[in-house]
């Protein structure tokens, strides 16, 4: 197995494009290094992207934020402008693992690992985030929701690397929130995750909404019916009930060691209601 630590993105994509057999990008390594312990793990090439310049930076631009693919979760939390703009995204990234894990893990790694339970992904989808993908023949922008295609699978082609996540500047009176269910208090994998992003008008009526679910299907689910249920409302009880029901209805979970279909479906509705209330308050509602 070969380990490379190139210092340009071109070199990195060229290495991956030229690799003969299995190759992996290494960001924080909190998924990859664990996988490498498995007896049946095989790889010929590991390309560490952390030495590429710009990877470890969060940049605020006129349009929004550019989060480099090497930025660890903890650095998101330390960026006050980002926390103010997208508190839900930051809280999701800071639910990953523990203090030690957060010192290393990245939201891009979380996305590319393509676990249905990845915590930061529903929050990124609700925020309308975009992935900036570098490849041997240049870069392209892809909506975050289109990166994972199923458990452990992404739409990235051979040689492609996500170099940054782009978050827009939120409109006025916008708030987002992420909640997950785990049986313990930390160091656990989401059984259900719900992200809600709301924009209000002056009188507190919801004028835009995005609701995304994690761990209740093979990949993150953007629930349009849930968004429709809350738009035009002030989150009255009946609206919250409708939101809850539309989220439960959108779930396509499986029974597994982490939870049952019934449990996941029911709790998705409960968390959607709670996350919506937090997002509403953060947007300046009530």
């Amino acid at each position, binding site marked *: 197995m070969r380990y490379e630590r190139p210092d340009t993105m071109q070199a990195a994509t060229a290495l991956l494009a030229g690799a003969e057999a299995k190759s992996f990008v290494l960001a924080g390594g909190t998924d990859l290094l664990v996988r490498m312990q498995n*007896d049946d793990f095989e790889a010929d090439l590991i390309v560490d992207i952390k030495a590429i310049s710009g990877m470890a930076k969060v940049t605020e631009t006129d349009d929004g934020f550019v989060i480099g693919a090497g930025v660890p979760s903890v650095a998101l939390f330390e960026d006050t402008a980002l926390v103010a703009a997208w508190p839900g995204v930051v809280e999701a990234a800071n639910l990953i693992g523990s203090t030690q894990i957060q010192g290393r893990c990245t939201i891009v790694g979380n996305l590319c690992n393509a676990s249905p339970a990845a915590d930061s992904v529903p929050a990124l989808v609700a925020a309308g985030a975009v992935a900036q993908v570098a490849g041997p023949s240049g870069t392209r922008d892809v909506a975050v929701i289109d990166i994972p295609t199923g458990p452990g699978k992404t739409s990235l082609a051979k040689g492609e690397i996500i170099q940054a996540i782009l978050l827009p500047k939120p409109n006025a009176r916008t708030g987002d929130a992420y909640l997950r269910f785990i049986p313990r208090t930390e160091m656990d994998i989401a059984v259900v995750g719900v992200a809600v992003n709301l924009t209000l008008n002056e009188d507190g009526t919801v004028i835009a909404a995005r609701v995304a679910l994690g761990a209740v299907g093979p990949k993150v689910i953007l629930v349009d019916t849930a968004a429709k249920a809350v738009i035009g409302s002030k989150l009255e009880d009946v609206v919250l009930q409708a939101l809850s029901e539309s989220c439960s209805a959108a779930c396509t979970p499986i029974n597994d*060691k982490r939870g049952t279909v019934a*449990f996941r479906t029911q709790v998705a509705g409960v968390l959607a209601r709670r996350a919506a209330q937090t997002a509403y308050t953060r947007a300046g509602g009530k």
Partner: protein
Amino acid sequence: MSFDATNSSKSFKSVGTRPLRPDGVDKVTGRARYGADFNMPGQLVARVLRSKHAHAKIKSIDTSRAETVKGVKAVVTAADLPDLTDGDPALFAVLDNCMARNKAMYDGHAIAAVAAIDEKAAKAALKLIAVDYEILPHVTDVDAATLPDAPVLNEAIFTQGVEPKSTRPSNIANRTEFGHGDVDVGFSHADSVVERSYKTEQTHQGYIEPHACVANCNPDGTAELWVCTQGHFVYRQVCADLLGIEVSKLRVTSSEIGGGFGGKTHVWTEPVALALSRKANRPVKLVMSRDEVFRASGPTSATSIDVKIGANKDGIITAATATLRYTSGPYADMWAELGAMTSFACYDLENVKTVGLEVIVNRPKVAAYRAPSAPMAAFAVESAIDELAQKIGMNPVDFRIQNVASEGTQSSYGPIYGPIGIGPTLEAAKAHPHMSAPLGKNQGRGMACGFWFNFGGQTCTDLNISADGTVTIAVGTVDVGGSRASLSLIAAEELGLSYDNIKAVVADTSTLGYNDMTDGSRGTFSTSMATISAARNAIEIMRHRAALMWDIPLGDVYWEDGHAHAAGTKHGNLAPLSVKDIAAEAGKTGGPIAGHSELVADGAGVSFATHICDIDVDPETGSSRVVRYTVIQDAGKAVHPSYVEGQYQGGAAQGIGWALNEEYIYGEDGRLQNPGFLDYRIPVCSDLPMIDTQILEIPNPKHPYGVRGVGETSIVPPLAAIANAVSNAVGVRMTHIPVSPPRILAALTDAKD
């Protein structure tokens, strides 16, 4: 020389204080040497090939391609561990579990093993071992295994303990029965009866350190084993028996231990490592991965228990019965029997009957886990007791006090109790501020009692006094919870020295006589007894030496406060001689001074506890948090109170994990779905509140200082205390452990419909 272990009440100087444990700093700084930290020159790395089938006949194993891998020095299968067990079924089960002989009996069962110069070669070789399996139908669930249509897992097993003798093979290996009185008559006098069925899932001890050893077989027939174990003498015996080595030629050294809780009282891979070393003629290191620890080292039983208890309107229990089905893995064992014995041990019952059924399933061989089998029985019984108290309108503490066992009670499993602590722990619980503290919204309080036998057993200790008057004690019970500190306190107390003057070490099997392992909460109980005895023997020698030094008759020398004193006035004004004074002259008065002790520590003294728990349940998600937890337990005499509290808290923490989230989850294919700490959820720090403890001291009459074992009882009540608390919080009786969020939410949803 026989040793009088009778308790003599005295006031203590060292015992009862809280000095730092001698192994503490090394453990927190990473210097301590655990099982995997030992290395030898030329050592090979071993890996084990394990079955991915729950139940399969092994038609053939071809290791020829594996043997040709560069760097591979030995490959072993069951053929390299010939059956020397001589008709001993328990030993045969150990052998078959170490390396499957004819059939793979569970997902993870060892099939073959490789020793190679490095991990990579070993792994490559494993992939080239060709095993031809014939897949057989499997059963993993305790109840399903007892149904008529279940596959029979071992045609040679006929239910024992039934009349008439059973004629058809069965997955129920054994039936045992305990009790007294006439339960039918008892129930006819009951005004209220609670009858329910309960289930508990299989849990693992969850020790952080995986099984690890280095084995070295020499050409001259001697061998050495460095291993993480709770009982190196027992490992020596079992390994010697299985490999055909003379016991004294196998030297076993125990490492520091990163948790065992019963799981390291049984051998798993050690005989395999020895067989590999014998074949390769090189030292072999074998460290299990976490996946292997879960799949192939002993979990506790999964259970299914039916309980029926009746009481009259005055709150007297008139009859109680329980039928307990415990899985034992693929081999017959006695886990249900222990459950049947412990079920009703806290109570004074006129009519009681318990039946234990040992159930064979395609899961790993069950191992001891802290008070083995008692927590599940206590869960079922204490749940029913709580429900019955509610039914007859009595407070659950008062109802228990009304029926509690005390000195002179005939226990449900036979013996008549001596002085015991269950009544006092209940009275203490009743008076505890926790019991009357207000509860918040969505919170519930539960309580439960627990019992464990405790054990004494064979013990051998050496106490050596050095020339400078400091003392080494060499003990043969592995220190799993601070016993080196406790035993040093004991030696200091007896000799009148300070704690700092004593160094306690765990000796290897070639330098000390046989010791039973550290199980049954026996470590401090039995070894303190042997240490006291050894110290008294050393004192006797020091009296002789003082008499020689003073040149006066022995009868005129007495020992007090760590000094030899000349009796009376006829020898003038002789200053007392300290241990240091006497030790300094040892070379001139007869040589080194030592005290030895070999004994069977009888009279361990049964142990009881009462726990109180407050839990907060989110009724919309089934999520729960323990918000307050109190352990009240009898210690006899707390030698080192901090480490007694540590045992109380540790047992409670493990019990809480078991009660709330821990469980072995098997797929339809009979494979374990969660062999790792990510999905086998033991509590993390932030899941638990600080666990309060209250130590009661009801002296054990059969220990010189009144000590009782304290290590295990603390895991017995939590399953029931948590289930009672959750049931009280949500208003629905929870009958299936763990009471995980999906189970709580499903119960609430069912109750609404």
